[in-house]
């Protein structure tokens, strides 16, 4: 035990303040845990999620996957694979279309996000109203699921890839715009201030002060979005926006279970491929900035 401190000593004052802060923090922590637990239970109750149903369904998943698996025998492997992938040529073509839909949608979406993200960042927007409107617009673009946009555009134009491209572009713009604007909010303000002091205007500050700082992050988010969009493009094919999704839909509707597994496996392999390529591109982008550990 230390001897009693005079109540007005510096140590005592600091200790008292520290105790005060800790008490407040502890109260906040407890409150947070209680609220989080209540929300968790309420979510389960309202969503009608019970552990029993989950457990039942859990095995159902495996049964389904097992049912879609092809019958392969070692002796006749070549023939079995050929018959499993009987539609390989058409599927590859459709998969390629899906990749193109995802690619175009990502490019348009990223371009839109790029132009809006600076207006949506709290630290860069010319004023609060512009930032507010921009953020709401991006929100609207991303809260409506791609599949809903796809349905609208399939109806408005006609079934086919253009509807898919626009649907994906709008959703990507909303999602990337939010991420980009948050990257912008984390920049180092020094370079920006340096430019402002030269008499640069807003556009010049953004172009030379912000863009060089944020570009690597923008690139990695865009590549991630491309991967996500391949999956999305496959799904919106189901409502007639072209690509591999249409094939998958036919296989599901007609109970061609082996076709389902064949197509899903192709999509997975495709995403893995894109992931690897994307990683290489991204490293090229930021490579010279990586701290060396030599």
């Amino acid at each position, binding site marked *: 035990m230390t001897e009693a401190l005079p109540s007005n000593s510096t140590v005592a004052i600091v200790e008292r303040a520290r105790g005060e802060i800790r008490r407040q923090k502890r109260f906040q922590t407890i409150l947070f845990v209680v609220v989080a637990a209540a929300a968790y239970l309420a979510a389960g109750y309202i969503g009608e999620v019970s552990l029993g149903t989950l457990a039942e369904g859990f095995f159902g998943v495996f049964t389904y996957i097992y049912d879609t698996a092809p019958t392969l025998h070692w002796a006749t492997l070549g023939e079995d694979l050929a018959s499993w992938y009987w539609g390989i040529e058409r599927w590859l073509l459709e998969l390629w279309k899906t990749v193109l839909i995802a690619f175009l949608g990502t490019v348009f979406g990223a371009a839109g996000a790029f132009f809006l993200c600076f207006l949506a960042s709290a630290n860069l927007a010319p004023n609060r109203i512009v930032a507010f409107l921009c953020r709401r617009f991006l929100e609207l673009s991303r809260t409506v699921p791609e599949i809903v946009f796809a349905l609208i555009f399939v109806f408005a134009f006609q079934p086919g890839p253009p509807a898919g491209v626009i649907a994906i572009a709008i959703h990507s713009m909303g999602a990337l715009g939010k991420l980009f604007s948050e990257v912008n909010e984390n920049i180092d303000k*020094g370079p920006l201030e*340096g*430019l402002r002091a030269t*008499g*640069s205007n807003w*556009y*010049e500050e953004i*172009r*030379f002060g912000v863009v*060089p700082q944020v570009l690597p992050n923008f690139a990695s988010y865009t590549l991630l979005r491309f991967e996500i969009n391949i999956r999305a493009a496959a799904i919106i094919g189901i409502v007639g926006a072209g690509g591999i999704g249409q094939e998958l839909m036919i296989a599901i509707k007609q109970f061609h279970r082996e076709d389902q597994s064949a197509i899903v496996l192709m999509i997975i392999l495709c995403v893995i491929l894109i992931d690897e390529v994307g990683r290489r591109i991204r490293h090229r982008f930021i490579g010279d900035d990586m701290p060396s550990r030599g």
Partner: protein
Amino acid sequence: MLTLEGLTKDFAMTRAVDSVSLTIAPGELVGVIGRSGAGKSTLLRMINRLIDPSSGKIDFVGEDVTALKGKALHAWRARCAMIFQQFNLVPRLDVMTNVLSGRFHQRPTMRNLLGLFSEEDRAAAIRALDRLDMAPFCLQRAGSLSGGQQQRVAIARAMVQNPAMLLADEPIASLDPRNAKRVMDALKTIHEDGVTVICNLHTLDTARAYCTRIVGMAQGRVVFDGPAAELTAAAAREIYAGGDEEDQAVFEEGLTSLSVTADPEPAAKAS
């Protein structure tokens, strides 16, 4: 002629600058000294309007700087160049582009955004860098340079603005003595070329060695204003120790020293 009248800046809890009135004649090299937190930085930032004053007026040759907006404000900042303690270059851009940004205001925005710079602008940038022995680093990324080198790039950027005035906010506070001397010598050369220089320093001896006039600040107020020769030990104590008797007792000028002194003759260009 730059005139400050009752310039004041309030932040949430504190008054950073407290009704400062100064008149600075063209061609002066003014050193603003004082402890950290004395309001030196805030004062400089208000002069080129990076922050807005809470009250008071800034007047430059009959023009009310405090009222400027939009294009006129950008034009004022371009005429009143600034360098910073942390250099504030864009680390990912090359040295050349960083310096060229000093020309942005004189050129069409679209050409700037597309990165189309004329040979003339590039030549001006290279000459400015060459004066500071930085030409060999032109195409390197600014972030790869040492602090002293970055500060010289920042000075080159300020010089291609062809400013009437140069504000230097603690330009040598992050530098070693040797680099500090190079930077101060560069400021002296710029001053000799006829540019008004206002320089925040927290070392007394540097101010004595380089400045034609010294302004001492304590707690947001100007407590000393005069030529370096008039800055007595008592005045220095007032600036650095304020009203605190205990601080005054232990104050020694050596505490603020960085051992940077000027050459006896006008700073010759290093070769």
